[in-house]
């Protein structure tokens, strides 16, 4: 492991394959970006002086002649007692950045201890093997133990008292270590280092919980007189230092200049060709990736494919096996559920060259050591740019050429990125956000902290002041859980609070997801009760670790849902009716032709149905109704409204030319019937027809229907005088423009604030109560009390709109498609022209839309 994994180099083959691609129009025509990064030499520093002699000897025997500059920088900072966050890329030797100083200290101070935290048990166990090897080389002086849910009961006592390095994860610290800290007294007394690996994973709700676990950890350590140094490693996000400092509430030094060597790297963006220009449909990303993978096999280039869902992995594997049966042995899948033995077997196969293509879900990007390969193909944008960069980063040897390809899917973000490759190559624009002071989350951890040590008057919990803390403690005392006497708060309940706190949910009220499949019933996980109606409504397709499930039953009262593994062709999108109420405005500002605000809101959502969307073509396959109760969500949101002047402007300038819609061959006759039924009177203002005939207006726009007959049914038609018709049309246009803008902003927002699509809700309202009845678009955090997403979006509002405008403007579709403003034909959505016009007005001003 210490020497870079030595895989058979297939240098010449790769060069030939790249030359082939350049000359093959089937491939080259779809490559929208090809950049080459020149090779980079390592920048070495000498091994630091004065490290423990056993360690010096170990490094020499392992073949080290020096350290990479960033490893030496990290070492120096840590030696000087500072906290450090190391944010260099994959396979740059981050582990040695902390192992070296930790081992050095542990060798000099016979009682010193260190705690290594990883997001998963699998990572911790893999690291244990690595550490054991290092320990072997120094003569077995540092005992190492993993302490987590898998640790057998009879090992736990020994690890507590003897292990100098304890490997664990935040859940175990929260549930099994801190509440039992007296059994760890010696460990805490001598705790010198806490290592947090994969920092970027600690964002959103999970990150906010972990920040509080760290507050509790520091508090308990402080009780035993220890103030450990924090060392964090991260993948490249745009704000590693900020996230680290928020997580550990201490100032951190940043080491982010990668001095490890790398060969020439080719980065390609591949956009599958359009097969249906009107609907804007493209060939699927999976099938194009299979084609490219075939080239890898043909040219005997070792590579890895990353697919988003286990379904896709299986599909791609099957397609590859079908098409290249002779190579079946060399093609392998990889997913998170594998046992260590199976993982080792695949790693060995890659090293020996017997396995040439691995197809994986993103589970692989979390550190498991397969070293580096020649090629990486990422099938569809994996959800965050950080993940994308890590997956692309799997291709790249220390020497020699490598190639990383992202194959875009039809999703708007993918289509956006193929036009903006600089986002992928340069610093990622995603900020990882956490809000440790979210009151719901904070309350749960104050409870746990009270269990661990009684709070005394004047104490703080991390950065939480005594005044704030006291409010929570008094509440808990009122609830009978704490007893307040002589300025202290004692835990007097007989419950174990850590048990009811899940670090991945915002509230303690959760729905348990039960899976019944062929083998046996098991529990998949939990979701917040508030999110349950739209995440796991009956009929919903739910994705977990790359595998899809269909929900067969949801019982909100019992807090359970039943799911079965699913192989359906579609995913589901819930349709809900929402009502929004403003609670407070925190900040507002007038911007071009509008006003933006962020503040607290209450959203009442009722999921009334869902639609099934084909997950390759994104067509709507069907719709179903649901009967679920509404849920209340109090959270933060950001909204902007079109000002009155602009609405007038739109009205008077008749911006949108009258559509020459085709209403069918019977249209003249239908018009006649309707006008007659309505007695030739405008149904809005009452005016009788005088010189010209009145218009006949579709209440629900024509484009929302799948058939002319339905669109032209008499109860959808109404007689209006030309003026009123214009007004009504305006409303329809505005509505559809607003909802188109809402759709595209919702799709793009995760690009700027690092979160999943499910974490942000979006609502457009032509007459919004938030803004005294003005047309408004609202984006909000889908987590109670908010996590900072909408506040962040408020601050980048102008940029967000500008990017959205560009995306819509450049989209080749005619009237709206899933890749820009939403599929045409939806009730109120579509309306590409209207959405674009609105965006132009908000970004460039009114002149930009005057014809």
């Amino acid at each position, binding site marked *: 492991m210490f020497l870079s994994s030595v895989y058979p180099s297939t240098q010449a083959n790769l060069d030939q394959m790249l030359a082939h691609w350049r000359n093959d129009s089937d491939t080259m025509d779809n490559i929208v970006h090809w950049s080459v990064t020149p090779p980079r030499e390592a920048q070495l520093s000498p091994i630091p002086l004065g490290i423990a002699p056993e360690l010096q000897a170990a490094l020499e025997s392992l073949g080290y002649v020096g350290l990479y500059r960033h490893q030496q920088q990290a070492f120096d900072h840590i030696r000087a007692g500072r906290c450090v966050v190391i944010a260099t890329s994959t396979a740059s030797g981050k582990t040695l950045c902390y192992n070296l100083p930790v081992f050095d200290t542990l060798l000099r101070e016979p009682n010193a201890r260190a705690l290594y935290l990883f997001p998963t048990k699998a990572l911790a166990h893999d690291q244990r093997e690595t550490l054991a090897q290092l320990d072997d080389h120094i003569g077995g002086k540092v005992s190492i133990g993993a302490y987590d849910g898998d640790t057998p009961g009879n090992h736990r006592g020994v690890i507590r008292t003897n292990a100098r390095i304890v490997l664990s994860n935040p859940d175990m610290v929260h549930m099994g270590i*801190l*509440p*039992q*800290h*007296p*059994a760890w*007294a010696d460990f805490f007394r001598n705790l010198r280092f806490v290592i947090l690996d994969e920092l970027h994973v600690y964002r959103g709700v999970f990150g906010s919980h972990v920040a509080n676990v760290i507050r509790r950890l520091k508090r308990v350590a402080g*009780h035993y007189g220890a103030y450990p140094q924090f060392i964090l490693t991260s993948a490249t996000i745009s704000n590693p230092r900020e996230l680290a400092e928020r997580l550990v509430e201490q100032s951190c030094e940043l080491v982010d200049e990668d001095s490890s060597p790398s060969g020439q790297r080719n980065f390609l963006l591949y956009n599958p060709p359009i097969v249906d220009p009107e609907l804007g449909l493209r060939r699927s990303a999976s099938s194009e990736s299979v084609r490219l993978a075939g080239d890898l096999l043909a040219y005997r280039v070792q590579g890895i494919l990353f697919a988003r869902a286990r379904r896709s992995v299986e599909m791609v594997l099957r397609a590859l096996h079908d098409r290249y049966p002779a190579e079946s042995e060399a093609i392998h899948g990889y997913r998170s559920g594998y046992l260590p033995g199976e993982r080792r077997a695949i790693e060995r196969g890659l090293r020996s060259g017997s396995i040439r293509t691995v197809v994986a879900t993103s589970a692989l990007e979390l550190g498991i050591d397969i070293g580096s390969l020649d090629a990486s193909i990422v099938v569809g944008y994996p959800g965050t740019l950080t993940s994308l960069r890590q997956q692309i980063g799997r291709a790249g040897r220390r020497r020699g050429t490598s190639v990383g390809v992202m194959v875009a899917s039809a999703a708007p973000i993918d289509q956006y990125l193929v036009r903006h490759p600089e986002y992928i190559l340069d610093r990622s624009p995603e900020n990882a956000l956490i809000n440790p002071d979210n*009151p*719901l989350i904070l*309350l749960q951890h104050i409870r746990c902290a*009270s*269990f*661990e*040590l*009684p709070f005394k008057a004047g104490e703080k919990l991390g950065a939480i002041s005594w005044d704030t803390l006291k*409010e*929570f403690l008094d*509440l*808990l005392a*009122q*609830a*009978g*859980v704490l*007893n307040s*006497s*002589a*300025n*202290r708060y*004692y*835990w*007097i*309940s*007989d*419950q*174990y*609070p850590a048990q009811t706190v899940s670090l991945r949910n915002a*509230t303690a*009220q959760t729905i348990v997801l039960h899976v019944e499949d062929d083998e046996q019933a098991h529990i998949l996980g939990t979701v917040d009760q*508030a999110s349950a109606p739209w995440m796991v409504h009956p009929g919903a397709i739910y994705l977990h670790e790359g595998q899809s499930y269909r929900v067969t039953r949801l019982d909100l009262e019992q807090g359970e849902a039943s799911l079965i593994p699913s192989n359906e062709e579609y995913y589901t999108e819930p349709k809900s009716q929402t009502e929004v109420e403003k609670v407070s405005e925190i900040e507002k500002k007038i911007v071009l032709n509008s006003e933006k605000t962020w503040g607290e809101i*209450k959203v009442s959502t009722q999921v009334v149905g869902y639609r099934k969307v084909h997950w390759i073509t994104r067509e709507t396959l069907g719709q179903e109704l649901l009967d679920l109760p509404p849920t*209340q969500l*109090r959270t933060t949101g950001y909204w902007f409204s079109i000002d009155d002047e602009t609405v007038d402007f739109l009205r008077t300038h008749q911006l949108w030319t009258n559509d020459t819609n085709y209403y069918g061959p019977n249209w003249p006759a239908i018009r006649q019937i309707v006008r007659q039924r309505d007695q030739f009177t405008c149904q809005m203002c009452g005016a009788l027809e005088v010189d010209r005939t009145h218009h006949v207006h579709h209440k629900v726009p024509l484009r929302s229907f799948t058939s002319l007959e339905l669109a032209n049914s008499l109860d959808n038609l109404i007689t209006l005088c030309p003026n009123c018709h214009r007004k009504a049309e305006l409303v329809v246009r505005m509505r559809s423009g607003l909802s188109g803008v809402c759709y595209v902003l919702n799709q793009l927002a995760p690009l700027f604030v690092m979160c999943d699509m499910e974490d942000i809700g979006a609502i457009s309202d032509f007459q919004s109560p938030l803004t005294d009845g003005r047309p408004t678009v609202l984006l909000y955090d889908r987590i*109670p*009390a908010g996590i900072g997403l909408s506040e962040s979006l408020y601050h980048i509002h102008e940029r967000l709109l500008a990017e959205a405008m560009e995306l819509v403007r450049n989209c080749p579709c005619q009237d709206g498609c899933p890749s820009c403003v939403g599929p045409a034909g939806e009730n109120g959505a579509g309306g590409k022209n209207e959405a674009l016009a609105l965006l132009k007005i908000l970004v460039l001003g009114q002149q930009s839309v005057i014809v």
Partner: protein
Amino acid sequence: MESLSDKLKSLGVQLGTQNIKPRVSQTRFSIEDVVAGEEIGTPLGSVYQIVQDFDIHYQHGLVHFDSPLNLEPLRAWGKTPPEKAAQIDQLLFLDTETTGLAGGAGTFAFLVGLGIWNDNGFRLVQLFLRQPSEEPAMLATLGRIAEAFTAIVTFNGKSFDIPLLNSRHLINSMPTPFIDMAHLDLLPLARKLWRNRLPSRALGDLERDILGVSRSGEEIPGWMVPQMYVEYLQTGDARPMKGVLYHNAMDILSLAALLRYDAHLLENPQEIQPNEGLDLVAIAQIYAEMGDLEKSLNLYEAGLQAGLPRPIFLQTLHRYADIYRKQGKLQEAAALWERAAQYQDLQAAIELAKYHEHRNRSPRDALQWTENAMGWLPLLPLRPSERRYWREELTHRQMRLLKKIQIEDRRNACN
């Protein structure tokens, strides 16, 4: 400004304000009103101490506090260093009442009951937290009292009370007084003694079944105790604490009585329980483990004579025989195996086969026993895997013995 409570409520949090009894209208009953005690002052605050003295002639159930006492067998069983538990006045008896059984840092002892022997008799000391903030003072007082003793006696204290108190010392940043003290936990002994004879080895049940004690109506069952303390803290009404104190006091008295009883039983089992065969053989096993084989043999014999249920009877014969075997007295062992064989005990038959083959050099007798056993097989209720095992073992032995006999016969014929 919206209150935190309202904000949390609108975020969907239920803080579970259960029915908290109104403090306002009732008069508070402090512990001082309810039970006589004194406030002990320490540099860390004060704690409430209740003392009760029992004179030397006190009788708790069947146990007389003035009976002659030899601690030696009990001390030897507990592997306690002799200098630490030679006299009863070196022992500190201890039992706690806590705020729960969940364990972890959030549970504390609100009542520590201590028992001390002196020339006048038995003194019961109870340290009670009127408020949780008095804990440091309680621990300091406990430490001061404990200084005079070299050993603690508890019931399940090794798993529960002492680790809990040690944790509380760590949380209060105070050194624990128990570190150099020996610890005699009477629960493991109770299990060894009465695993087979009694349905439960809980202190309350032993109290009734062994010591002959019954508690008054004041008694509060153990599982209710944590909740009652919490309610006392919330309401200020200490009257229910009377029952809790009684419960704890009885626990300490029974612990003291049980120690005396156990000591007598180990020293003179045939006098204390001449008719309890199960007790006698349990003690025989204890002595065998301590290495006193003579005593063990006598007790096994006495146990057999007193009468035992069948499975224990057979087990006893084997254990008894094993001791003889250890001493090299194989004939005596064989006699016991033969007794067991009367009940179709397969293991006994095998032992006899081995005995006859190797000691008596009589393979024919060995074969006889083997074949007897094979004859029992179909009659015995065995699991299929057991049946297979015995059949294989016996068949194998039979084949081997037949061969041996054949060779012997041939040799005899040649001579």
